[in-house]
């Protein structure tokens, strides 16, 4: 960790980069050309004829073959030399990054980008990019770790010097919260091993039995042995007669939608969004929190009939979910 004085000095050093060009303007090695456009379209599966079919392009609003707009910053990418890495900085942006890396802010993560297109590029256009370091935030705490947001602004112009578009790009330069996980050498399945799954409910003395029943294929609710009152979620004491003696009954799975909320954000990994989170009135007379599946959010109606089923996640975890029924 840096001392307060060291941090002050670091921030004074990095703030000197604000407003500076990262280096001289760079002109694309290749003029805009059909071969590179086609290669892009192949990789993106883009069949838009204005990028590749002269006859159609000429009759279109563009009047001829144009480059995909999103390709704007590809023309002036450095290309081949990028594979060598940047141990020795070759421009001001890399020098700024290295100062932060050396101070422990070793991580880098692209977070946002914004582009505006003044016009589409045509075959033969020569693109020149000029990038300045537009701003550096104060130190921020983020999910990835603490760090600084660095925003660059690149202006793209044609051979006549007219602007064809611009791009803002923001990266977080940060101190990683933990060391990167060791590389897996397990081969082709490595990606799967990292797929996050649904967050598991806490299971303790009072409720693990209920999840075990679900795992065994039964959706149950608790029943008081003293007064026969049903209750859910599981808990040790009957709210009616205070008996702590209980058993359970399997439910029919039939119910109606009491109320719901549709969750769009935040999008935790391991779930499909949006989530139709529901409170279901079971026909046995108790309520259960679950999700309504196979139903668009706009089709949710309070009072609609639902039927429970047991869903099994890829990792084997089972839970009751509901879907609309007749």
């Amino acid at each position: 960790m840096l001392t307060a004085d060291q941090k002050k000095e670091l921030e004074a050093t990095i703030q000197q980069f604000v407003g500076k060009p990262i280096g001289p303007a760079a002109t694309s090695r290749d003029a805009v050309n059909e071969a590179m456009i086609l290669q892009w379209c192949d990789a993106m599966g883009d069949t838009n004829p204005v990028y590749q079919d002269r006859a159609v392009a000429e009759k279109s609003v563009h009047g001829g073959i144009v480059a995909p707009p999103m390709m704007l910053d590809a023309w002036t990418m450095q290309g081949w030399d990028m594979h060598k890495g940047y141990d020795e900085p070759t421009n001001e942006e890399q020098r700024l990054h290295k100062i932060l890396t050396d101070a422990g802010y070793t991580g880098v993560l692209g977070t946002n980008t914004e582009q505006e297109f003044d016009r589409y590029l045509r075959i033969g256009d020569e693109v020149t990019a000029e990038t300045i370091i537009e701003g550096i935030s104060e130190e921020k705490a983020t999910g990835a770790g603490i760090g600084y947001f660095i925003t660059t602004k690149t202006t793209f112009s044609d051979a006549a010097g007219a602007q064809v578009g611009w791009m803002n790009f923001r990266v977080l330069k940060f101190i990683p919260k933990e060391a990167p996980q060791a590389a897996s050498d397990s081969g082709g399945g490595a990606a799967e091993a990292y797929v996050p799954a649904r967050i598991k409910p806490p299971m303790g003395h009072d409720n693990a039995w209920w999840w075990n029943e679900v795992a065994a294929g039964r959706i149950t609710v608790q029943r008081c042995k003293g007064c026969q009152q049903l209750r859910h979620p599981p808990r040790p004491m009957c709210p009616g007669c205070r008996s702590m003696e209980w058993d359970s009954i399997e439910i029919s799975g039939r119910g109606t939608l009491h109320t719901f909320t549709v969750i769009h954000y935040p999008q935790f990994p391991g779930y499909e969004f949006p989530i139709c989170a529901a409170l279901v009135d079971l026909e046995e007379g108790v309520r259960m929190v679950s999700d309504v599946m196979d139903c668009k959010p706009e089709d949710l109606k309070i009072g609609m009939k639902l039927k429970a089923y047991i869903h099994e996640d890829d990792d084997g975890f089972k839970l009751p979910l509901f879907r609309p029924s007749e």
Partner: protein
Amino acid sequence: MTTRTHASVEVGEELPPLDIETTATIVAGGALASRDYTPVHHDRAAAQAQGLPDIFMNILTTKGFVGRYVTDWSGPDAVVKGVKIKLGGPNLPGHTLKIRGTVSAKTDAEVEIDVAGTNPYGAHVNATVRVVLPQ
């Protein structure tokens, strides 16, 4: 490909879904087609040295798919004016990148589309794309 006209579009319209079954070829091919030779996008050992299980899609390719998604729907006579992108988790070979979009705003001149790309890690990209459609 047919072209959507400005008048035919209403706020709230959902664009047809697009699922990209991400392969190493798409990741590496997209990176090289965008002249991005950063090793983590084509060299698995380099990606693993950074703590990722495999090579991952570069931002230009993600942007390319967002652009394609919108013009697949709008047709060839649309003019893309701008895009704002918020980047999420990485997209890797084996991931299905699910791209969904909705018309989120409309002015006299432009139509705005919100695009979300998700994969098993959660949000990979959220974008807003502005296009001009023929009147």
